[in-house]
């Protein structure tokens, strides 16, 4: 009774919904304009400035002792901050997505605070909290612990500013994955650490790495909060961004841009790592 009335649709599916040509051209043009003005041109200028006095001056600028100290301090800060924030972020994401407790929603919104607050204010908070004129700060001082105007202060300020990256990356991922696999593991007799190591961590490892990359990028480049707590002591409490600023304000433009170009290299490296991870993400979600 039923006749085959519908023909097979043509093999090439033409897109029914597509914006008119001029809209496409306009949008692409606007985007290119923006990229040229805000990314390509400045990038080119940084390198042009950095190499203005030649290759040897460039090398000298980044090998000069104060610059080396700044690089060391930045790398030290990042090396301490990123693992710590990976642990904090992981715990926060774990708590928020796997448990139910009072104040969970509040905690989730508070996670964004370091992003919402101006980094300068973030720095000031720590000066007010542990500065040498405060009771806690002077107590620490009596015990020979110096936080403000020294490395611990820089690390703490950076920790605060970069705190949300890992957690924000993991929460949506872990929420989407739910607790099913963990529950299955627990009914099969696994202990907490086994579940974490065999089930949870492999499921979130790419998200975790991604969060850590963003976190390192920000710790390397952080200026505001660090500027307030550092005290700008050359060779002691200067990070790369602070060093760049000092050189610049001393009208030492070429050296300043030479050091700044290091930050650009690190930023480019982050972008490359990030996009290669994103590619892996996609492959993973396709395969598994």
């Amino acid at each position, binding site marked *: 009774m039923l006749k085959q009335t519908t023909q097979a649709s043509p093999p090439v599916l033409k897109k029914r919904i597509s914006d008119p040509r001029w809209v496409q051209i306009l949008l692409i043009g606007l985007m290119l304009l923006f990229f040229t003005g805000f990314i390509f041109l400045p990038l080119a200028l940084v390198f042009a400035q950095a190499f203005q006095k030649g290759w040897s001056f460039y090398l000298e600028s980044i090998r000069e002792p104060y610059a080396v100290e700044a690089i060391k301090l930045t790398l030290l800060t990042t090396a301490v901050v990123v693992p710590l924030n990976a642990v904090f972020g992981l715990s926060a994401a774990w708590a928020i997505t796997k448990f139910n407790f009072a104040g969970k929603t509040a905690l989730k919104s508070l996670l964004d605070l370091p992003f919402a607050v101006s980094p300068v204010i973030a720095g000031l908070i720590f000066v007010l909290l542990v500065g040498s004129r405060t009771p806690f700060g002077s107590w620490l001082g009596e015990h020979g612990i110096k936080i403000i105007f020294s490395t611990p202060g820089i690390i703490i300020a950076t920790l605060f500013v970069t705190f949300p990256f890992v957690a924000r990356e993991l929460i949506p991922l872990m929420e989407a994955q739910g607790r099913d*696999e963990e529950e299955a593991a627990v009914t099969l*007799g696994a202990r907490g650490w086994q579940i974490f190591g065999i089930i949870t961590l492999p499921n979130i490892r790419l998200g975790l790495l991604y969060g850590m990359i963003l976190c390192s990028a920000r710790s390397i480049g952080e200026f505001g909060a660090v500027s307030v707590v550092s005290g700008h002591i050359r060779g002691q409490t200067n990070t790369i961004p602070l060093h760049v600023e000092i050189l610049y304000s001393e009208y030492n433009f070429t050296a300043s841009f030479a050091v700044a170009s290091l930050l650009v290299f690190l930023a480019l490296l982050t972008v490359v790592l990030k996009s290669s991870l994103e590619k892996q993400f996609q492959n993973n979600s396709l395969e598994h």
Partner: protein
Amino acid sequence: MGIELRNITKKFATYTALDNINLNINSGELIALLGPSGCGKTTLLRIIAGLELPNSGQILLDNKDTTNLPPRKKNVGFVFQHYALFRRLNVFENVAFGLKVLPWRERPSRSEIQKRVEHLLTLVQMEWAMKRYPSQLSGGQRQRVALARALAVNPKVLLLDEPFSALDAKVRQELRRWLRKLHEEIHVTSIFVTHDQEEALELADRIVVVNKGRIEQEGTPQEVYDQPANAFVYNFLGNVNVFHGRINKGKVTLGNHQFDAPEELKNLEEKPSQSFVRPHEIGISRIQSSDSDLLGTIREVRLLGGQIGLNLECEGLDLPIEAEIPREHYINLQLARGEKVYVTLNRVKVFTGDYEI
């Protein structure tokens, strides 16, 4: 391994999910927890597994109180509605998981694990897929792997939470029969949760009908189907026609139609009642066979596989009746839309009270 549930109560913030549940399950039984969604049946299963704690009450496995044992010490196998296979592990590693996480003194050797996993995968007919990842399998295949994984730890009790509800009808039916067969082979005490009465009737040794956190009835499929304890159970176990009427001194009144009330309700004084008849227990005839037959007009005819569904408008009743008759019968009577027929209501179930559907 028998299970005994004593006075289990579970409250969530705004409602009571389980209200004083008492239930005994014999060793080796296959039990269905049947009820509408949100009735608390999954919560009960999760409490037995230790994934939730009850607010009060006890769970006894083999006469030992296991209420407060952590789930990993309960030794129950749990099969989830959405499989919950470990996505980063292949099929072999999934099934081996429960053995590999054992403390090393109890852990079988590598070759024993290999043998046991292979055996289980053969049992669930998935031995060909050992190296595959869950995402490369169909829903039915994943659920069979999940079952093998749950059986790997030699559970004393197997709990299945709507195991087939995410699968399509054909696969669901196939897996149902297969599970029944598997249960006959391995005889582990099993409880499965379902909202599908057909699944419960076909699979279970015993059905526990749950509604709003309470047990409405428990019994063999036959008992529950033929002697439903109340209107809810009757209604939940299949399609029904409901007639709202009154019962008085041994007579049930439906519209301007009367018939004798069942024995146990003979002595009731004037009371509202509901009468239920299953569509396939309605007789359709060209000739009147008794005074209690109703005269009806066929409004609609539908083909339901081997059966024919009729929608009838009957004199004296305000709601239409749904009837199902064999196709052959339909052809013999040469029925068609708009014709008048005599309708006999067989095996009418009468319940009093204010139950509403």
